[in-house]
């Protein structure tokens, strides 16, 4: 599915520095606890998909939400990380969980 076809315009571009919202709503959540509140860089735009948080509640999840692969530095995510400082972790995060 192309983004244009779905009428969904991504707010962020490859290379943008973004932060994952630090939220704890109820319901089905696709954003892991450990990454909330952390900042990373958009590595790619994966497309747009119906919102799984809505699909989980028997709704259609539209409009589709852009999905980004975001790259984080491991040492930013894990306190006291002792691996290579260049190590990264990438997660796919839906747009409504992202702020600039």
């Amino acid at each position, binding site marked *: 599915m192309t983004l244009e076809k779905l009428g969904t315009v991504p707010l962020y571009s490859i290379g943008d520095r973004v932060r994952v919202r630090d939220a*704890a709503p*109820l*319901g*089905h*959540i696709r954003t*892991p*606890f*450990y990454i909330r509140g952390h900042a990373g860089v958009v590595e790619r735009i994966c497309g747009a998909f119906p919102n*799984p*948080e809505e*699909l*989980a*509640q*028997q709704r259609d999840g539209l409009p589709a939400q852009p999905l980004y692969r975001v790259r984080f530095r491991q040492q930013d995510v*894990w306190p006291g990380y002792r691996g290579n400082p260049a190590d990264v972790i990438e997660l796919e995060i839906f747009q409504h969980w992202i702020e600039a």
Partner: protein
Amino acid sequence: MIERGHHDMGGLPAGKVRRSEHAYDDWELRVDALMMLLIGVVGESRRMTVDELRKNVEALAPADYDKMGYYDRWVISLTQTMIQRGVITTDELARKLEQVRGLSPISRRKRTRRR
């Protein structure tokens, strides 16, 4: 507030990962096949989404979640979903469980998954 769901355990201590090949019971393969049909990966009629499966897995009591296997969680969750969607009723399920209780158990022969 619930800050972190019990299932959302990324980054918590978890011990060693077992790297051995898994074998599956026949009932587990059936649950997998049932799920493929219900979410419409196979066949024409979609009865639920994988997101509902996840929601109801995450709704398991932590103690149950920890002691259940992967397909135990699936079969409980997809059954909850069928009740929520009105495909079956709690009463129908109860009567069916009573009916099959005492029948000879299905084959529990181990099988290696081919995928």
